[in-house]
């Protein structure tokens, strides 16, 4: 008994000895981002490493706001991310449900095509997508252009399909025998049961939208339609780079994600792990 607890202690020490330095390596850039966001530009470039935050955060935010209307850009980012996440989770759930639970001609072909699109790098798609949206549909500088094109997320479809496939079919058969309509089965039984998976997917999609830089940069040229990452990008000018402002903006971009992750952590882990063990 004693030797067992001793070996447990050694194991725990070894594990922590490995994990604590790893955690520090991971957290260090985030901490430095926070430290720099509290300093004026000349402070950032002063010799020696400064690890303690200063008091200039609000000054940097004011500068950032003056240069880019960052609050407006954040608002746009929030609206886009929330609407996108909601619509995309619903859309991928519906597609996943159909592919998991209905037999129809060409089903495996559709699944194959969706799987295939995952292998295509985004940089291959983005130019044709831009030409379609901007030139053919004339939607440049619109909310629709920001939200709709990335809505259909193939990874999300497969994610949801997996969740619905794992549910026992008798549950839905029981509802059918009771005369419950197909859309009611989806909305009232399948979706509530898929909640952990949907939560995990929502976090992934929200993050993807929140951090998306390339597509909003390409499709929007109007300053009033800029998302937060694009607005931050404009601070890197040819002659002057406002690092303090960029870091303050980066902190403001990161903070909501951290809060969401901490709040939904339980769902997130449960959703990712769902299906790993039956």
């Amino acid at each position: 008994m004693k030797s067992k607890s001793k070996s447990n202690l050694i194991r725990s020490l070894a594990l922590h000895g490995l994990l604590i330095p790893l955690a520090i390596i991971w957290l260090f850039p985030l901490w430095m981002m926070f430290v720099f966001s509290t300093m004026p530009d000349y402070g950032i470039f002063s010799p020696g490493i400064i690890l303690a935050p200063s008091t200039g955060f609000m000054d940097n935010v004011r500068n950032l706001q003056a240069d880019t209307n960052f609050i407006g850009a954040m608002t746009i980012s929030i609206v886009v991310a929330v609407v996108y996440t909601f619509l995309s989770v619903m859309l991928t759930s519906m597609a996943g449900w159909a592919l998991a639970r209905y037999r129809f001609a060409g089903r495996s072909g559709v699944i194959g095509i969706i799987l295939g699109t995952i292998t295509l790098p985004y940089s291959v798609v983005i130019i044709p997508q831009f030409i379609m949206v901007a030139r053919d549909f004339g939607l440049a500088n619109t909310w629709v252009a920001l939200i709709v094109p990335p809505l259909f997320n193939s990874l999300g479809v497969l994610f949801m399909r997996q969740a619905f496939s794992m549910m026992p079919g008798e549950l839905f058969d029981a509802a059918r025998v009771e005369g419950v309509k197909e859309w009611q089965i989806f909305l009232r039984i399948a979706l509530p049961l898929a909640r952990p998976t949907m939560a995990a997917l929502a976090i992934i999609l929200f993050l993807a939208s929140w951090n998306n830089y390339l597509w909003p940069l390409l499709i929007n040229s109007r300053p009033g339609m800029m998302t937060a990452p694009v607005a931050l990008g404009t601070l890197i000018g040819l002659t002057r780079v406002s690092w303090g402002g960029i870091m303050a903006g980066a902190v403001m971009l990161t903070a909501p994600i951290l809060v969401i992750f901490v709040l939904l952590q339980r769902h997130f882990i449960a959703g990712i792990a769902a299906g790993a063990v039956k």
Partner: protein
Amino acid sequence: MAELSLTNIVKRYGALEIIHGANLDVKDGEFVVFVGPSGCGKSTLLRMIAGLEDISGGELKIGGRLVNDMEPADRGIAMVFQSYALYPHLTVEQNLNFGLRMNGNPKADTDRRVKQAAEILQITELMQRRPKQLSGGQRQRVAIGRAIVREPQIFLFDEPLSNLDAELRVQMRVEISRLHKKLGTTMIYVTHDQTEAMTLADKIVVLRSGNIEQVGAPLDLYDDPANQFVAGFVGSPKMNFLQAEVTDNQQGRVAVVLKGQRNVRLTLPITSAKVEVGQPVTVSIRPEHFLDAGRGDVDMTVDVDVAEHLGNTSYIYANIESGEQIVIEREESRSTGNRDKLTVALSAAKTFLFDSAGNRLR
């Protein structure tokens, strides 16, 4: 309440035929049990009646109406599944009223039906619990309750007790029987457990490989099986099948001797089947039909392998000279030990004869 009729029902998956033209009539209020080994098509047949599987051929009528292409909900049936299929995110009460609510049934009527079902099944105290907070037996009750609130013409049960432990299974079996008596509704019940079939059924339908082998009252199947498969399936422990040979056939009286034991000779009346001398046949006898030595038509001595004493009865597993193992059920054999010799008697009146294809010779 309604009667049910199956006429030449066929089920195909592509080129593969699973049910080969099933014919069956179920009377109003009857308790019919589909029984057979795994993969015999009994669950598929039940799901076809429920409308959860398409019917590839034939006619299915419920209450005289052709329902082949009717939606499950319009057939007037309710089904209880093996896995209970309770909605895990809803309470017991919500599980019971879910179907009615979704169909816009008036609230007062829904509440009345739910209350009534809960009282019948004694689950009134469980109404606010979720399925995961219930025991297996309670879950099964809720599943049955969900079927009752539909006030169906026919109840369908798909192996409803197979997830329960042995004791609870017996208890629930009695409850289902009581429920049938109380409601008087037609019930179709699928099981692979012949004890369930024997105890519950008014009528048993024995299936094998997508064919109905025999339909009849439990004791008719026990006393008068149509073929070797039914004989082996009905009754526990299983019937003994002994290889034998026809040695004489005169005016409808056929004499057979057991393989390896030429002194064990039985004469059976066989009038309708054509039997030839020298033909290999199977003599079958139930474990409980062996008699004390000298009390039957012929005696047979066996080598006892293992004796199981259950108190009221004993099962003796013994080897005979042909190398076959048989089971003998004896009420007064408490002293029989392993590796003893035992002499028992066979009576022609309690044995059946089957040809090499398993058909009954009468």
